[in-house]
């Protein structure tokens, strides 16, 4: 049996509903909210600020530190125990790598740029939502941005190539599944995040990435609009 019709009626390249807002956390230097389907992410940027303990400082360049955290009630099953598990650690690390190419860290010697991502509710695609929110928060913090990044998961469910998999599709059992979160820089179109769970032939992977790039263009438009709403429409 093949996966001809997506279970929620979306077209193969259709994203779930997206919402984005910038400047949602008053204490932060920059912040954003990004929602895709039932997955919600808040991101806050603090910094560049002094980095302690001092031995972590680099005299040549600043450090980017990311932390991805699911709120205890944000999983679809049992409570998520607070504290960083291995999954959260890995996601924090790949998030860092996904965002690093956006910044010129040489500008901030001895300092740290902290990015905190918190998820109040999740339903697949949470690392990508976190990256989308974080990228907007970095821009909102007024940091020099070399580019912008957007992220989405792409993949295959049986013989279909689709974007923005949800739980049902990730857990599809009647055929092979591949879940591939990617992050794409808007201008250079280079990938800053690429992971995969599952099985896929090379040709299908390349097609999936192509589809993901187009989807990221749509996400970028939403991110850009949210930033513009804060900086150009305010008080208008």
């Amino acid at each position, binding site marked *: 049996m093949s996966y001809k019709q997506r279970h929620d009626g979306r077209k193969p390249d259709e994203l779930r509903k997206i919402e984005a807002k910038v400047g949602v956390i*008053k204490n932060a230097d920059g912040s954003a909210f990004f929602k895709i389907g039932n997955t*919600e992410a808040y991101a806050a940027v603090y910094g560049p600020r002094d980095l302690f303990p001092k031995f972590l400082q680099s005299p040549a360049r600043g450090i980017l530190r990311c932390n991805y955290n699911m709120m*205890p*009630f*944000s999983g*679809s099953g049992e409570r998520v125990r*607070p504290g960083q598990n291995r999954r959260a650690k890995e996601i924090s690390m790949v998030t860092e790598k996904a965002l690093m190419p956006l910044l010129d860290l040489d500008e901030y010697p001895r300092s740290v740029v902290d990015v905190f991502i*918190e998820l109040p*509710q999740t*339903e697949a695609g949470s690392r990508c939502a976190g990256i989308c929110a974080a990228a907007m928060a970095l821009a909102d913090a007024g940091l020099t941005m070399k580019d912008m990044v957007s992220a989405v998961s792409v993949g295959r469910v049986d013989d279909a190539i689709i974007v923005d998999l949800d739980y049902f599709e990730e857990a599809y059992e009647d055929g092979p599944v591949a879940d591939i979160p990617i992050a794409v820089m808007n201008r250079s179109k280079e990938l800053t995040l690429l992971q995969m769970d599952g099985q896929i032939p090379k040709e299908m992977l390349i097609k999936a990435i192509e589809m993901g790039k187009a989807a990221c263009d749509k996400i970028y438009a939403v991110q850009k609009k949210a930033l513009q709403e804060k900086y150009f429409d305010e008080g208008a």
Partner: protein
Amino acid sequence: MEQIKLYLLNALNKGRRLDGRNTLDYRDPVKVEYGVTKTAEGSAKVTIGDTVVIAGVKLEIGKPYPDTPNQGSIMVGAELVPLASPEFEQGPPSIDAVELARVVDRGIRESKAIDFEALCIEKGEKAWVVIIDLVPLNDDGNLFDASALAAMAAVKNTRFPAVTEDGIDYKSKTDEGLKLNECPISVTVHKVGEYFIVDPTREEARICDARLTIAIMESGELCALQKGGEKPLSQGDVSRMIDIAIDKASMLRGVLENGN
């Protein structure tokens, strides 16, 4: 004395706060939103001025404690995530987080707000555990009152998930809520110099001498207390602070009941 404290005392002498509020005013808005996260069995977001707290309830099935075989239980956690304030740090719960969670827990537990016996499924074997987690999104002071309000709102918003032979089916919620007998409201009154204030901003809280968190039941009776801060309180102070708290609790109770 710190300059900012002098300013505050000076203003209080004229019956005002640094932000123009009267001494016993809460900030605007005081707002409760119910059902803010779908993955929780119950949730709420409370906004007091620039302070924002999300509370979420997860329900699990556990074995009752041996000394209360016919009762379920509650657990309250607070995570002062670094997203919410430049002063919060990554890592295991700080003493502030522990105190916050315990004070909120005490208000709910001691008022017997949640009927623990109604949580029992099978005596000595199975009972519901109500886990309330508090996560501030932005800390601009008065996390105690905001968190206690959010916790009660989330509890009221809670609906049991369906239970099948395989266990809890978190994806399908029933219409059944928790059996509630009370609704405690917490008000924290702060003392600075000779003055009493409520709902301090982060800046104000930092320069206050002492605080008293008072949890108040529908009848006006008290169900939990927690004194904080470095300076002592006289009996007269305590009496005055309780009067203030009872008055303010009715306002917060109204917000809780009229939230959406």
